[in-house]
C-alpha cells in the first residue's frame, strides 16, 4: 500500500510538493489550521480511503500564548483579563471560575448578592456560548437561518454585558473577593426582557431543526461516543452529558449557591451528534429558568467580601479621602491580593465543560504555578477515536457538535 502526503494550506510545503499526485490507496490531507469548519485554528491530519476517513490526528497549539507562564509572573487580579481570552465565547464565566478558585484557596465566602450576580453572569455566558454553538452547528449542517436567528439574540446578550461591565467581549468583571462594581440600575429589567425575547427564538430554532429530516440525516447516529469513552477521554459538559453521564458540577459539587435554584440537567441517550444538539438546546431553556429565579430573588446587601481586607480593594470614595484605605488600595494594586500558601483545585461547569484551575501558591500576590484544565482540550482529544469511519462531509458536523474554542484549548 502506498501513502502519499498532500499538503494544502502549508505555504512552505506547497511549492515543493506541487506535483504530488492524488493517487495511491490512501491519501493524507490537511484540514486547517485555516478552515471555516474547524471554528478556529485547529488542524486535522486526515488519512482518507476514498471518501472515508480512516485516521484523524488533531494538531493543536496554533493559539498557544503561554497563559500559565504569564500567570506565574503577575498578580491574581492582573490575570483576570487573561481569563477572558480562554473561552472567549462566554468570557464572563471564565472570570467567575478563576476568582472562585482563588477564593477557595483564600477561604473567602462572598456575600449572597455577589453570588447571585455571578450566577446570572454564568448563565448569560452559557446562553452566549450555546447560542453560538447551536447557531454555527446549524450552519455547519447547511441551515444558515438558525445561525442568523441565534446571532440576533446573542447580540442582545452582548449589549447586556456592555451595560454591566463596560465591555461587550472582554468583560474582566470579577475581582478576588467580589466584583468590579455592582449591577447598574435597571439592568435586571433588561435581563428579563432579553430572556422574554430569547425564549420564543429558542422554540423557533427547535422547530426549524430538531425535527428536520435533513438535519436528522446528518446528525443521528453520527459521531457516537459511548459512555465509557466519554469518561475515559475526560469529556465534560454537554458532550459528556449527551453520552448519558449525568455529571453537572452545578449539581454535583454546588458552588455559588446553585443548590438554591431549580433546574434540570438534560442527558442524552445515544451520545451522537443529534443528542449533543438536544442537550445544548435544553440547557439554554434551563439557563433562562435559573436566570429568572436569580433575578427574582436577588438579595440586597454588600456585593463584595467586606472582611477580605488584604484581598479586595476598598471603595473608591474611601481610597480618595482616607489614609488607611489609600494604603490598603496601594498595597493590593502593587503587591496583589495576599493569598495564603497551599494547593487548591477548583473546577466549575463552564459552557464548554469543566474549566478547572489548579493553584500552587507559596503565599503572596502571585501564584507559583497555575494550571488551567481546559474542557475544549480534553473534548478534542476524543477526535482520533470518534472520527475514523465517517465520511469527509461528516467532519464539519462532528466538529460543530463538539463545540470547542481554540483559545481555551491552546491557552
Amino acid at each position: 500500500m502506498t501513502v502519499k502526503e498532500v499538503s494544502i494550506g502549508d505555504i512552505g510545503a506547497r511549492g515543493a510538493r506541487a506535483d504530488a499526485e492524488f493517487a495511491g490507496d490512501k491519501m493524507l490531507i490537511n484540514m486547517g489550521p485555516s478552515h471555516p469548519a474547524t471554528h478556529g485554528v485547529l488542524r486535522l491530519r486526515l488519512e482518507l480511503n476514498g471518501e472515508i476517513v480512516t485516521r484523524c490526528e488533531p494538531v493543536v497549539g496554533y493559539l498557544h500564548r503561554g497563559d500559565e507562564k504569564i500567570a506565574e509572573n503577575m498578580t491574581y487580579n492582573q490575570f483576570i483579563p487573561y481569563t477572558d481570552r480562554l473561552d472567549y465565547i462566554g468570557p464572563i464565566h471564565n472570570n467567575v471560575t478563576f476568582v472562585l478558585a482563588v477564593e477557595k484557596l483564600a477561604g473567602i465566602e462572598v456575600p449572597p448578592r455577589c453570588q447571585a450576580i455571578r450566577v446570572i453572569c454564568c448563565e448569560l455566558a452559557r446562553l452566549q456560548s450555546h447560542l453560538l454553538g447551536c447557531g454555527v452547528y446549524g450552519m455547519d449542517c447547511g441551515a444558515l437561518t438558525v445561525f442568523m436567528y441565534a446571532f440576533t439574540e446573542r447580540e442582545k446578550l452582548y449589549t447586556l454585558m456592555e451595560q454591566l461591565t463596560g465591555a461587550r467581549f472582554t468583560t474582566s468583571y470579577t475581582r478576588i473577593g467580589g466584583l468590579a462594581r455592582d449591577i447598574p440600575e435597571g439592568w435586571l429589567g433588561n435581563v428579563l426582557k432579553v430572556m422574554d425575547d430569547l425564549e420564543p427564538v429558542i422554540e423557533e430554532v427547535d422547530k426549524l431543526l430538531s425535527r428536520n429530516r435533513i438535519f436528522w440525516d446528518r446528525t443521528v447516529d453520527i459521531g457516537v461516543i459511548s459512555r465509557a469513552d466519554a469518561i475515559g477521554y475526560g469529556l465534560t459538559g454537554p458532550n459528556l452529558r449527551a453520552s448519558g453521564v449525568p455529571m453537572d458540577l452545578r449539581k454535583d459539587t454546588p458552588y455559588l449557591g446553585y443548590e438554591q435554584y431549580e433546574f434540570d440537567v438534560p442527558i442524552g441517550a445515544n451520545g451522537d451528534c443529534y443528542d449533543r444538539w438536544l442537550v445544548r438546546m435544553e440547557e439554554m431553556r434551563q439557563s433562562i429558568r435559573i436566570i429568572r429565579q436569580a433575578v427574582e430573588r436577588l438579595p440586597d446587601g454588600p456585593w463584595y467580601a467586606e472582611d477580605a481586607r488584604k484581598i479586595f480593594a476598598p471603595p473608591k470614595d474611601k481610597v480618595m479621602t482616607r489614609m488607611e484605605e489609600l494604603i490598603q488600595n496601594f498595597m493590593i494594586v502593587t503587591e496583589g491580593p495576599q493569598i495564603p500558601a497551599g494547593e487548591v483545585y477548583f473546577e466549575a461547569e463552564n459552557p464548554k465543560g469543566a474549566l478547572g484551575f489548579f493553584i500552587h501558591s507559596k503565599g503572596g500576590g502571585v501564584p507559583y504555578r497555575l494550571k488551567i484544565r481546559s474542557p475544549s482540550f480534553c473534548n478534542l482529544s476524543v477526535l482520533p477515536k470518534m472520527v475514523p469511519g465517517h465520511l469527509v462531509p461528516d467532519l464539519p458536523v462532528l466538529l460543530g457538535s463538539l463545540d470547542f474554542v481554540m483559545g481555551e484549548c491552546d491557552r
Partner: protein
Amino acid sequence: MRERLNAILEAHPYLAARPSADCRAFNCPPEHLIGLLTCLRDEHGFDFLTDVTAIDHQEARPRFEVLYHLFSTERHDYLRLATPCADDQQPACPSVTALWPTADWHEREAYDMFGIRFAGHPDLRRILMWDGYPYFPLRKEFPLAGLETPFPSEDLTEATGASVLPAPMLGGPFHSAQGGPMSAREPRAGDQSWTETRPRPAAAEGAPPGAA
C-alpha cells in the same frame, strides 16, 4: 468519605498525606503509581481522570512533581495524587494512558512544557509547541519573554532569514517581573522611549499653536 480515604491510606502504607487546602491529597512513590491508580479507579470509584499536570520546584529536591486529579462521578469528590520524578536532569514518570486515554494529551502537554518523559506513553511528542522546539517553556529558568528560536519551518527561516524573537517586555505588554524592588517591577518604570527631555517634533507650518 473520610473513612474511605483512611481505608485507602491503610491499604497502601507507602502513601503519605500531602498538605492541601481542599480535597484529600497524597504523595505516592512512582513505583506504586500505576497500581494505586488502578485500585482507586476500579475499587474506590475514582473513575474520572480530571487532570494531569506538573510542578517545577526549582531548588527543592526532587525538582519535578507530577500531579493527578481524580474525580468520582458517583460520589462527586476529588482526590489529588502527587508523585515525584526521580531524576532532576531527565525527569521521568510512568504513563497512565493505559488506564485513561485522556492522559495521552495531558502527558504530552507535561512533556512539552516541563520535559517530563512518561515511560510507556504510546506517542510522546510536543503538543502545544511545535515539533523540534528546543526548550521546555514552563520550567522556571525559561524567561517569560521567551528565547530566540528558528521558525518551525526550515524553508521559511531560509527565505526570510528571520527567527522567532522574544517578546518586548519593558514598555511593552503590561507584565511585571517577579522579585526586585517594587519601583523596578512596575513595567512602565523602565520605559525610556518618551520623556520630557526628548525633543518634540517641530510643529508643521501653519498649524495652530500647541499642535505638535
